[in-house]
């Protein structure tokens, strides 16, 4: 008797989690099969919907901007309704850990590169840092966190034309770690309020060190490493000691905000009763005509079938390895779905690093139900849908739309899979 569910979701990131939650809302049994830890830990933890169209932006109204997208963009298929449904599922899953749901317009969040990013949802700890708030800001970096230079962040933020003054200072962290200590090490020290050399708590010593630099700024921004399990407590203590609001600036990998989002999503899956099988890759399938019967999971050299009525493919894009490529062609490795691309691989990219690359839009071509289609436009399988980065047509890095595309396509794919199972 094999393992059997109504809906099987293949993948472990934002799209997979959302598709599983959407399918679970229909009351069906759902299992998620994930391989590696998801690319969420490399992501900012912000939920972007749409910030730029064809290099033009930042756009304040993501819904209004959708009309300017090309016809084969996933948003044109799922519509505003699909995006709103995706955000609803997300908001339910993360509860009050995220802000931004009060408005339809994009928030502008300073990032660790000093750019200002249009985004739809952001962690609470990021909220006091929004660029639209008319309060002067002091950015604080630590000597050993070389990828976050507070003065550079401040200068860039000011150059972006924000309505406030910003300044950056670099100070030593009150506890000395090894030179290449990870963000998680700083977070843990603050979480536990570890003691410094003179026996005082690190939170207090840090607040005092920052206070020396604080003039009349009304808020202080740190790289996102202010605690993990007790992050709210860390931030509250710093705020009360400093007497100003404290915010986090999303960082690059390993991103604690991304890690926390991953944890929260998996908690939501567990609470919703979604079953989880993690650690092994999906490598193939068994079909009867145009219906998939089972997905094979490679459990260290042995393929185990996972049966279901309906399947959702949410394995990610090129970075997440849901889309593969070699020197010859671009593929979708699990079901070998059609992925349109030029035969000449020199057409796959542009010479400019931030150019309009074809590879950025590589992915399966969905129909209006998010079923991947063949070259002739027919569904590849009657009971397979796709969501997230594996879906082509969006240049999510240029558009700042990665999370929104994941949420919207997952809401439609997962919801339909659940209804039909």
């Amino acid at each position: 008797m094999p393992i059997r569910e109504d809906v099987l979701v293949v993948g472990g990131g934002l799209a997979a989690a959302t598709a599983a939650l959407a399918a679970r809302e229909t009351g069906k049994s759902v299992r998620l099969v994930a391989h590696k830890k998801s690319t969420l830990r490399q992501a900012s933890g912000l939920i972007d919907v749409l910030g730029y169209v064809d290099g033009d932006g930042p756009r304040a109204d993501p819904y209004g901007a959708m009309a300017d997208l090309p016809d084969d963009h996933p948003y044109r298929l799922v519509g505003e309704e699909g995006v709103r449904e995706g955000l609803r599922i997300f908001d339910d899953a993360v509860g009050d850990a995220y802000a931004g749901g009060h408005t339809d317009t994009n928030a502008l969040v300073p990032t660790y590169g000093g750019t200002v990013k249009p985004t739809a949802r952001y962690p609470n700890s990021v909220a006091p840092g929004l660029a639209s708030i008319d309060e002067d800001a002091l950015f604080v970096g630590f000597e050993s966190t070389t990828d976050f230079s507070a003065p550079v962040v401040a200068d860039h933020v000011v150059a972006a034309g924000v309505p406030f003054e910003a300044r950056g200072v670099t100070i030593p962290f009150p506890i000395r770690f090894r030179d290449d200590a990870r963000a998680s090490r700083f977070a843990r020290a603050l979480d536990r309020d570890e003691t410094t050399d003179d026996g005082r708590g690190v939170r207090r010593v840090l607040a005092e060190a920052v206070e020396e630099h604080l003039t009349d700024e009304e808020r202080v921004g740190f790289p996102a490493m202010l605690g993990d399990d007790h992050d709210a407590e860390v931030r509250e203590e710093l705020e009360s000691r400093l007497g100003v609001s404290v915010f986090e600036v999303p960082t690059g990998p390993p991103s604690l905000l991304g890690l926390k989002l991953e944890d929260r999503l998996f908690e939501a899956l567990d609470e919703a009763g979604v079953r989880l099988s993690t650690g092994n890759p999906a490598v193939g399938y068994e079909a009867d005509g145009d219906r998939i019967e089972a997905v094979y999971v490679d459990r260290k050299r042995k393929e185990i079938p996972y049966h279901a009525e309906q399947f959702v493919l949410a394995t990610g894009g090129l970075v997440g390895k849901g889309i593969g490529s070699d020197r010859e062609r671009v593929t979708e490795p699990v079901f070998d779905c059609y992925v349109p691309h030029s035969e000449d691989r020199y057409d796959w990219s542009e010479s400019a690093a931030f150019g309009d690359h074809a590879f950025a839009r590589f992915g399966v071509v969905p129909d209006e139900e998010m079923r991947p289609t063949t070259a002739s436009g027919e569904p590849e399988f009657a009971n397979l849908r796709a969501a997230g980065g594996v879906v082509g047509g969006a240049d999510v890095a240029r558009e700042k739309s990665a999370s929104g595309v994941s949420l919207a396509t997952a809401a439609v794919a997962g919801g339909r899979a659940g209804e039909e199972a």
Partner: protein
Amino acid sequence: MSDAENPSNPTPDEQTDFEPVQVFDDETEMDLRPGADNCYKCTSCDTSCPVAEVDDDFPGPKFQGPEQWRLKRKDDEDIDDSITSCSNCMRCDNACPSSVPLSQMHNTARGEYVDEQMDKLSREYLRNRLLSNYRIMAEIGSKVPRLTNFALNNSLVQKFNEKVLGITAERDFPAFAEQTFREWWHERGGAQVSSEEKKIAYFHGCYSNYNTPEVAKALVRVFEKFGYEIAVPRQRCSGTPMFANGMLDDAGRAAEVNVSEFSDLIDEGYDVIASCTSCSMSLRQEYPELFEFHGTAEVSAHTYEAMEYLRIHEDLEAEIENASVEEQSFAYHAPCHARNQGLEHQAVELFRELDGVNIEDVGDSCSGISGTYGWKEEKYDTSMKIGEEMFDHMEHAEGNVGMTECPTCSMQMEHGTGYDIKHPLQLLEEALV
């Protein structure tokens, strides 16, 4: 302008038979290379490493694997001695988005370190050799279990162990059973069920043979209930403690026996079942990564953890839904080596549906003991620091009985909380037999 921007000679078509590996010498000896080039330094492995989390001096899996390999390419570089601080939890494997075989690289590096850099007369070497060959001690000790149990946990002996051997005096040695599993098995006359189709060969490993035969007996009773014919072939240690201590020659000798015994049975239609997740991990992953005995690949492909096997081949879910047991609550910890095989959720998922049982996952932290690691006097504190989060979650869980598949995790759980620890097979036995 680089060649990549302006390919000078061949067109892409002419390059189709280009095999990048051909540029290197034809290597027959294992080195640290496999997959190193796939590492793009995203540090996912470092953030998953339980040792790096608590030990500021430990450089982490990225350094121990791909970076160490790059350094080693210059011939006169030694293996960095921090390799002995890796606990072989193998979490880095699971974290790497590029499928770099990190634990394989660590095992290889550790083997090279022990072979070429470690003083074979040093206390550390002798201690590690002794710990990783636990089975030999166990075999002798279990001949006179009561005497051994008394002697090993005598405080003078413990002090001697710590001062002379470097084995921590903080821990109590696990008790040897009055009768080993194999003795019991022979006494009962071996298999009680015969079947043409359903046949399993049981890899009991050392611990359930010498220390917790009740786990092995539970496996036998549960599988016989489902109509399986069970074989218990001659076997040696799975090799896990030897990999973790860089004793690859010892591990190879043990693996050769295991592969030969079990692959013969696979030819006769048996699948290999283990009740310890480190044993199944070793047969599945480490054997084919490190050895090339005839039958290694077959053993790897046919090895399963016990409950995993039942879930694939039987309707365990329906059986559990129709069963009930006396009211009890468990704090479940998934061992690292269960996680790496994709088994971390199965016990909680299944027992949640069992009438009378309340089971709670105590979170994803490592228990910290990692086999022999937490027994070393110099690693004991690190081991307990890693375990802190698990102890804390266990104490906050409703149950005051722990549950896990791994014998050393269970030692650590017991050591840190004082709870009794059960194996999922014991609860399965209670529910179904």
